[in-house]
């Protein structure tokens, strides 16, 4: 609780300032709603909003899980030789540079309206940081330890699972932290185009000029991102606390 306090203070300051500025008429309420109106909407429309949050959570988590498994597998594959890296890594980078909003309509054509498009969107947006961090982590293994494994005749698979993968774990977890936030963004984008959830709530509320509802949905999406971030931090704490400096303070 004491650790969360410093992050809570700016939140309170912004909320109080925003409420005061809107009430004083310095900011138009139809542009930026007062925080009290957002909380009122959260209570009044809770059934719709939390139902949408549940759908977005499923889409984002499924996309994130696919990214985690697929990204780590692709990162390990790319690390296996420089020839493979040269042949395939540029395509992974290219995949990252494709704007999701431009290909989202294609996803609807391929996967139809609904959860599959949302999951695909979350997956596409969040996989690259996992690939890049897994690859960098594996390639950064201490050369002296690699020599040691060579000296004792370790097989490539023993070297991967006993040395390179554990050594890369802190970086893989960093990639997963980034991917968690991106998966929520990807799911929301997918819902804009072809799904049900917080993205579609935002889209409908926008057409109705309901900025309070837009803000309420955005707040819930952010909380989902934070929850995913917290979960990965917990994983990191469990996996690294005994040996990695990042988890020892």
């Amino acid at each position: 609780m004491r650790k969360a306090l410093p992050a809570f203070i700016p939140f309170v300051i912004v909320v109080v300032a925003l409420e005061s500025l809107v009430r004083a008429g310095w900011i138009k309420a139809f542009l930026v709603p007062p925080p009290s109106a957002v909380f009122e909407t959260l209570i009044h429309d809770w059934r719709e909003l939390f139902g949408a949050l549940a759908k977005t959570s499923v889409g984002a988590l499924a996309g994130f899980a696919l990214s985690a498994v697929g990204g780590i597998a692709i990162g390990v594959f790319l690390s296996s030789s420089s020839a493979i890296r040269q042949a395939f890594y540029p395509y992974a980078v290219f995949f990252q540079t494709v704007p999701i909003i431009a290909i989202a309509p294609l996803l609807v054509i391929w996967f139809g309206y609904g959860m599959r498009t949302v999951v695909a969107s979350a997956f596409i947006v969040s996989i690259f940081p996992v690939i890049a961090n897994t690859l960098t982590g594996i390639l950064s293994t201490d050369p002296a330890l690699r020599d040691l494994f060579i000296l004792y005749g370790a097989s490539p698979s023993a070297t991967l699972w006993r040395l390179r993968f554990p050594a890369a774990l802190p970086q893989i977890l960093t990639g997963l932290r980034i991917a968690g936030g991106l998966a929520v963004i990807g799911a929301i984008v997918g819902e804009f185009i072809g799904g049900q959830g917080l993205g579609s709530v935002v889209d409908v509320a926008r057409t109705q000029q309901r900025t309070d509802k837009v803000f309420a949905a955005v707040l819930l999406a952010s909380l989902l991102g934070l929850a995913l971030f917290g979960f990965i931090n917990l994983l990191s704490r469990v996996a690294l606390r005994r040996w990695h400096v990042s988890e020892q303070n």
Partner: protein
Amino acid sequence: MIPRPRINPISGAEQVPGNEAGGVRVALDKVRRAFGELVVVADFSLSITTGEFLAILGPSGCGKSTLLRLVAGLTAPDSGHIGITPDDTRFHTAFVFQDAHLLPWRTVLENVALPLELMGIGVTERLGRASAALDEVGLREAESRYPAQLSGGMRMRVSLARALVTRPRLLLLDEPFAALDEITRFRLDARLRELWLERGMTVIFVTHSITEAAFLANRAVVLTRKGCGIKLDRRLELPQVRDNEMRAMPEFASEMQGLLAAMEEED
């Protein structure tokens, strides 16, 4: 406190008591290794007899570490030949690096057991042997700790135990104690010397410390600044069993003087 082994003074490097693993003979014949345009090792020839403790001295960047990597088979020579007799040295060569290079996610015991694990030895046997190796370097009580919980000297002892756990016939050490304080270094030097006397393995110890070379080795080779030329190849006439009192002996000072003169000599 590192426990002292029961050892007897002996007279020659080839006659070592308690010689369970024994050593190997290493012969380098006109070995050459270049990195791009830079020739690090040029036509280097040297013969190291079975069970010998050889120190290789030279200034930083003279190619000492490359020489060691060539002997270990971690770097291939561009030309020349490196012969190790008997040649069944797979799993019988061990290497101690400049830093401990432990796996930080493994306990001390698991780190020491690693070479045996890679060799496919069962868990009960490898943990037992790892425990015994830790005993030899006086670190049994730290076996469940992680490397981050150890001092630099303790980490180096773990690294030494990891090298010894396979009972190597050829032990290669690349300035292993260079980063340690003087007292810890003296203790580890003494323990390494004792272990060599117990096991009779062939040891090649790379260092730029004249004191360390004179204390540890039976034979010292001083290299030139470039190309790994041999400036001096000298047998050190000192007692087989050595302790810190020996450091005050005139014979020790004389050997150090000889090595220092060779180090200072222009290439």
